[in-house]
């Protein structure tokens, strides 16, 4: 295979022409570093906010799934222990409460409590102050 020669590294005219371009005298503005770092801090802030939002959403979904699973598990464990009477009680529940089922009521109370717990845990263990 034919070896391609490296171009002449001398080319003094070319070097002089490149150096004589007015851009050689052009300088960055004095506040360039400050302006760039301001933009970088904003980028970092946006990235952290996005990350926090993702963590919160995942936490919320996890809480709801755990709450539903806990209710299901509780029912599954309680049914054989309490026997057929418990099944009958569960079946009678909607008719016994004035409009709202106690199971639904328990969920309505449990969800805000779990959300509050999730926020408290998030603030305590996940949300970190900015280091920069």
């Amino acid at each position, binding site marked *: 295979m034919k070896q*391609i*020669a*490296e*171009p*002449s590294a*001398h*080319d*003094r*005219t*070319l*070097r*002089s*022409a*490149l*150096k*004589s*371009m007015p*851009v*050689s005298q*052009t300088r*960055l*503005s004095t506040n*360039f*570093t400050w*302006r*760039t*770092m301001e*933009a*970088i*801090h904003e*980028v*970092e802030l946006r990235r952290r906010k996005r990350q926090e939002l993702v963590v919160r959403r995942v936490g919320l979904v996890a809480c709801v799934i755990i709450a539903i699973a806990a209710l299901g598990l509780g029912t599954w464990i309680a049914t054989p222990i309490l026997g057929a009477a418990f099944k009958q009680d569960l079946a009678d529940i909607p008719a016994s409460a004035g409009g709202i089922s106690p199971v639904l009521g328990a969920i309505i109370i449990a969800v805000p409590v779990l959300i509050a717990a999730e926020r408290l845990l998030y603030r305590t263990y996940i949300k970190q102050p900015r*280091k*920069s």
Partner: protein
Amino acid sequence: MYNDMEQTDSHIITQVLAGHTRHFETLVERYSRQVFALVVRIADSPEDAEEITHDVFIKAYQNLQRFTGTSSFSTWLYRIAYNTAISASRRQKHEAVIEPAQWDAIADSCVDDALDELTQQRIDLLYKAIGMLSPDERAVITLYYMEELPVSEVASITGLTVSNVKIRLMRTRKKLYILMTRLYETDC
């Protein structure tokens, strides 16, 4: 083996990735002039060049976790600068077109002599000719002749092979010679 500068760069990068954003300022201070010097020659406008340089550092910060250390930080940063400046200047189309027949008619020795003869008239003609090159061509000659980078590093920055960089440099030199001749004839 890394030298002190590279160790410092990698140390700073580790600090930035650990969450200490303000350490990135050292990298901005250290490389902004070099990046600007390349960008301003590709972009051909100092105002645009400063904005592009600004964007280069923001892109570098956003992609810092992708920096693997296989090349030096400056080469990696130059690659971002080259790509950003080329994309930004694609809109400006004012490069000169050379007929294929003209390439073959020129002997390499003529080009060597023309680009190495240090007279003010030649420098002035060449200066005008450089302005008529495409952004890619200006970038390659800036990296090779101004920044004095080896062909292998120019290849790494531009994403071309070493052979292609050599070919591009040869063709750019020939193109400059043709443009100089044209400009000389126009001036006379």
